[in-house]
């Protein structure tokens, strides 16, 4: 029975190595005193994935265009089956994503997990924060009701007050000198294509560094992370799926 379940995995592993990679990611070593605070990063990632999926579904019904946008949101909310649920998840999920991102940032800062060798990861995190906030900004205009319109007017004008380049930045965001149909199309393209692409790329880099550099201990830890551990006992399993995580890499370093 177990053989039947394992056979496809072995087939895949022999031809790609992917299963071993997933095992390596899931079963990598972390310090013994990690706690619930360390889950905030994964929680942020989950919120982002929820936004991705609900966003794709919403995009199947949303009609960008100054005359059609609000009506399409109405349609999603009232007519489409479970549209109210998907739209609600996306709307509230955006706030959840931002809040979790800030909490995660606070956790990393207070735990000192930005210090050597994780400085680059912190920088990528800052970029993720800015990009995530910009995703929220562009998404806010899309329902095109009064709140959306005036909030975007104010946000674009605030950008316009930056010294020297401000007026040009505002024109670039608006797609012209005045808010118009170009603004909505521009924000939709940014929200759907450019910014999620940037977010996915940055998150991939962020996760790669986390796996490569390891998780650091909390500041109150009295064990130095990276102490040697007994090797995992091999499990009796047939097939070519590796039972040991490959490579040791840098485990979590002490924070001081």
């Amino acid at each position, binding site marked *: 029975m177990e053989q039947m379940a394992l056979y496809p995995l072995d087939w895949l592993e022999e031809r790609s190595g992917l299963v071993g990679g997933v095992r390596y990611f899931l079963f990598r070593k972390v310090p013994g005193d990690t706690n619930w605070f360390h889950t905030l990063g994964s929680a942020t990632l989950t919120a982002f994935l929820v936004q991705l999926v609900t966003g794709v579904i919403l995009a199947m019904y949303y009609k960008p265009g100054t005359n059609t946008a609000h009506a399409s949101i109405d349609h999603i909310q009232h007519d489409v089956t479970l549209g109210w649920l998907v739209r609600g998840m996306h709307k509230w999920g955006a706030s959840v994503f931002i809040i979790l991102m800030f909490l995660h940032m606070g956790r990393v800062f207070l735990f000192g997990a930005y210090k050597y060798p994780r400085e680059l990861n912190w920088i990528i995190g800052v970029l993720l924060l800015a990009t995530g906030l910009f995703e929220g900004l562009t998404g806010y205009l899309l329902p095109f009701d009064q709140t959306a319109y005036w909030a975007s007017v104010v946000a674009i004008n605030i950008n*316009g007050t930056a010294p020297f380049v401000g007026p040009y930045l505002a024109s670039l965001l608006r797609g012209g000198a005045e808010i118009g149909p170009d603004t909505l199309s521009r924000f939709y393209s940014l929200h759907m294509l450019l910014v999620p692409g940037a977010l996915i790329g940055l998150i991939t880099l962020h996760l790669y560094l986390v796996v490569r550099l390891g998780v650091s201990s909390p500041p109150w830890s009295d064990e130095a992370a990276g102490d040697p551990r007994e090797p995992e006992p091999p499990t009796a399993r047939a097939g070519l799926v590796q039972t040991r995580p490959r490579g040791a890499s840098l485990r979590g370093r002490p924070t001081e």
Partner: protein
Amino acid sequence: MEDPRGDTERHQPPPSLWPVGFAVGIVCLLVGLVVSWAVAAVGAALAAVFGFLWARDVVGHRSVELPAPAPDEPAPDAPAVPAQAGGAAMPPTQPGERYPRSVFLENATLGLGAVIGVVVTVPAVGFAVLPAFLKQHQHEADLGPITDFPEGQFIVATFIRDPSQGDITRRTAYIRNNGLLKGVPSFTCISNRCAHVGCPVQPGGPVFDNKKQTVKTKNGDVTLTPVLPAAGFICPCHGGSYDQEGNRIAGPPVRGLDRYEFLIRDGHLVLGNLYSVAKVTGTGANAKITTVELHGPGQHVDGPEAWLYPLQPPH
């Protein structure tokens, strides 16, 4: 730092005039930004050319050599050695040869790749960026016969500036007929866009909706509603207050309300371009308005902060 060629004295580039040309180019570029685009283009070209020549001088004409053959390589005048023998697959550099073919081919490939990249990327980026700045103009708004504007009375006029774009170009202006100034009709046409962050400014007084009228013009429907802004104009977002001439009285706005240029054509009041206002002294027909180019909300037009916004994109 020791010279990698092993010389012990530092090699300085000989004196040259390239930096002078580069500086002249930069100056022309900056002056041209203010005066004319042709001068700016000439300046940019000068700066690029002389900058490149200067940088090349500074980096120095270092000879580019192949990596030295492996130490157990046979004598350098041996014929070409196949790669498996453990050395370079080409004849080692003869003394005097400074730019071997392999390096040229490598650089040519990279250069060609860069050219292709630029040819593909620049138009695409131009398409993304330039339309926000080109072909920008404001549309006229025909507000109907001037007989609809009783003298001395403020009227709230909502109109569609660009009928082809529809309702999203709906704007509001506060219009007052000031009578005649030297025989010519004088109007005060104040924009309702707050100079703080752009919220719609409301009249500080009763709006007589029961006297609203709708006029059909070539801009579509224009609604005219009499209003008595006794307290001037107040912005509901953050409390910016303006007087009846649009001067800022209180609150976070950095300047007064913008105004519309206007003209009378065939007895109709026609609004033209928006412009920003530094100061208005006097009232009504005798108002003296210090006008500046249209600025976005939150941008100062006078005082030291005005230096932060020297250039405006096309409107």
